């Protein structure tokens, strides 16, 4: 459904030009959850931002092709890009505090994509927004609709973000470390919610994370990135249990194992 | 503060060159001026620009170039003194209120606000009317008027820094409050403070010029840039050079420090 070929991203704002993503290839099919794993500086967030069409800075050069419904997102104009953003491609970020506008009510923010991409009346928009808030398992959606971001907890804010990203039923959801800032029990709930959305709506999800065990729980296919390169690419089980690359092995070995000490010794 | 980056900033480079040249000229003026700045030469009244008198002469036949040199020295001393008083007391008040907070903060900052509410020139006028005019009184008056703006800047920087973990670890290592304030936190306010000092310097140059222009600053026969402008205004049409050169000097001084401040702030 979306096909990325030979994506290269190069920055010019430093003294030397610096390539942060090399020859990135990715095909995302309908209803698929793909994980993008790497440490800081691996280029995983850059690739995701490029796919979402959010990299439009003047001091960088992008090469390659991001084909979505026959359009190359890399060299189409702003107008075409905006037609896709929010409507066909949704995105959620790591920090739900800064990715919501602090002075706008939750309802307004969830509706924003509808306002931009549909001709629905005010009432219809509100109805859709409240339905959506309910779908992301927020209690009392009518009340949340009238609240401001600072009145919600981190987990609730991330649910609101998901509702806002999903309101136009996008075909693709890009999730950039959506659970990193959350407590582990909340993290589990958000992951379950993403899984459910994926199953119900057949939304393809690109899940970016530094947490390999989390990615293993959620994704079918995994790309491991390091220093701008995709070093390994395969099914989640294959990568988690039979990694081929040294770097992937190192990543997995770095996750502390919880095994009974008696078994550990033997 | 990232000096490597600052040194490459174009504003900073231009500002340092400009300020450097001005300071060098003024320094040279301390030891040598072509003429005694206060010696009148009736034969040279309103002499034009020539090799003999680089900037011409004023209504008493005094050499304007010599007077600009000694005048900018006076202006600079006043500005430096003003900023020094403002910075020292500003740091002290800002550090104490920002670090301790509480009642001390409330009281000092309300006084600060009250002082801040008056335009600094007005405040300086008030002090001058109490103290009498003269170079040193101008320094004290302007200095006091400048304290609040520095105090605010330092205070907000201290509030930002005092909750950072490095302050906590310094406490655990056994550092006392004063050491934490002045050895640990203060260097971290330097980028902001230095840029404020440059702007303060500009304001002080302008304030001194303004006060001397009004006749309540530096007293004759001492030259200051503001006084020269004030004296020149009666001859604006007959001898425009007389106003032009002191005015240009003020502009160059202010521009130089302005560029320096910009260069510091942007990195």
């Amino acid at each position, binding site marked *: 459904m979306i096909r990325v070929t030979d994506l290269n991203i190069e920055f010019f704002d430093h003294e030397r030009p610096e390539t942060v993503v090399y020859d990135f290839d990715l095909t995302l099919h309908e209803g698929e959850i793909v994980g993008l794993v790497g440490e800081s500086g691996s280029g995983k967030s850059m690739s995701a931002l490029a796919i979402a069409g959010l990299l439009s800075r003047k001091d960088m050069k992008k090469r390659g092709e991001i084909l979505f419904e026959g359009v190359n997102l890399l060299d189409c104009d702003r107008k075409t890009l905006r037609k896709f953003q929010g409507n066909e491609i949704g995105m959620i970020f790591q920090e739900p505090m800064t990715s919501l506008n602090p002075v706008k009510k939750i309802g307004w923010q969830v509706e924003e994509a509808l306002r931009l991409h549909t001709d629905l009346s005010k009432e219809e928009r509100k109805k859709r927004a409240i339905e959506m808030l309910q779908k992301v398992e927020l209690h009392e959606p009518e009340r949340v609709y009238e609240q401001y971001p600072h009145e919600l907890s981190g987990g609730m804010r991330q649910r609101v973000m998901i509702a806002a990203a999903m309101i136009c039923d996008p075909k693709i959801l890009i999730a950039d470390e959506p659970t990193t800032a959350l407590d*582990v029990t909340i993290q589990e709930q958000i992951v379950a919610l993403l899984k459910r959305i994926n199953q119900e709506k057949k939304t393809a999800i690109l899940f970016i994370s530094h947490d390999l065990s989390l990615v293993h729980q959620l994704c079918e296919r995994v790309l491991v990135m390091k220093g701008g390169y995709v070093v390994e690419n395969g099914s989640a089980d294959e990568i988690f249990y039979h990694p081929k690359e040294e770097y992937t092995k190192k990543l997995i*070995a770095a996750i502390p194992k919880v095994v009974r000490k008696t078994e550990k010794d033997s | 503060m990232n000096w490597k980056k600052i040194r490459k900033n174009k504003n900073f480079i231009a500002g340092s060159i400009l300020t450097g040249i001005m300071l060098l000229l003024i320094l040279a003026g301390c030891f040598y001026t072509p003429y005694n700045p206060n010696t009148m030469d009736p034969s040279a009244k309103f002499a034009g620009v020539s090799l003999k008198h680089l900037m011409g002469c004023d209504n008493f036949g005094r050499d304007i170039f010599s007077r600009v040199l000694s005048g900018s020295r006076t202006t600079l001393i006043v500005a430096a003194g003003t900023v020094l008083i403002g910075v020292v007391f500003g740091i002290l008040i800002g550090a104490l209120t920002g670090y301790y907070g509480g009642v001390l903060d409330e009281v000092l900052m309300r006084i600060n606000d009250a002082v801040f509410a008056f335009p600094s020139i007005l405040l300086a006028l008030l002090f001058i009317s109490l103290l009498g005019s003269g170079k040193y009184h101008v320094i004290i008056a302007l200095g006091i008027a400048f304290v609040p703006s520095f105090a605010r800047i330092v205070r907000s920087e201290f509030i930002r820094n005092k909750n950072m973990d490095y302050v906590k*670890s310094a406490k655990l290592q056994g550092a006392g409050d004063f050491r934490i304030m002045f050895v640990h936190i203060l260097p971290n306010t330097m980028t902001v403070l230095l840029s404020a000092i440059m702007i303060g310097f500009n304001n002080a140059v302008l304030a001194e010029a303004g006060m001397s222009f009004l006749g309540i600053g530096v007293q004759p026969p001492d030259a200051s840039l503001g006084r020269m402008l004030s004296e020149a205004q009666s001859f604006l049409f007959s001898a425009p050079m007389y106003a032009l050169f002191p005015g240009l000097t003020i502009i160059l001084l202010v521009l130089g420090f302005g560029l320096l401040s910009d260069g510091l702030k942007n990195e």
Partner: protein
Amino acid sequence: MTENILEVTDLQVSYPVSRKTPFEKKKSIQVLKDISFTMKRGEILGLVGESGSGKTTLARSILQMIPYEGTIIRNTVQPQMVFQDPYGSLNPSQRIAWILEEPLRLKGGLSKEERVQKVKTMLQRVGLEEKILERFPRELSGGQRQRIAIAAALMLEPELLIADEPVSALDVTIQAQILALLKEIQKEMNLSILFISHDLRVVYEMCDHVLIMQLGQIRESGDVEEVYFHHKDPYTGKLLKAAGIETA
């Protein structure tokens, strides 16, 4: 040596709620309720909980940085602390050499040469090269900074180290290195570490005993093995499950 280095009995901490006017009645919220535990010399005690559970408050009361009720007996010199964010815990305007020397300067009694010698020894201990001494914190990577933070905390040779989420801001491979370093140093110096973390895997790897906290109370405590594989409190089970840890 199995004497207790730390005994906490009936610890209560409450924060005053800020009032809108000075005339309102003073209110406070209790953030720690009836906390009691002991810590043995030379052990690593894990402190697990989600945000708002009071982990950091507990650390700060042990360090006597906030007022509390109850008793805290510390059989040790001033404990030192390693913080989560290695960007904020090192003074940004000072060079590494200065930062590492500062504790010794504060303590006094050593000449400049002796201080420099001690700093160099410690630097080697945490696996860094001497050329780093002339750098500023911003010129170092996250992992290097955390090594420096550990070195700075150990300069005064504390017996108790409180590590508040020391690896949560780091990449997983760097995290593993820092954990290994902490363990090594702990063995070598017979250090006691109060290891605060939200990451149950890391705690299992590091700790001998563990306290599970929720909403200002201790829900469960004991030997790590016991707590992870035979937990009595349902909250512990919930945490383990959420972390994807199979204990059946």
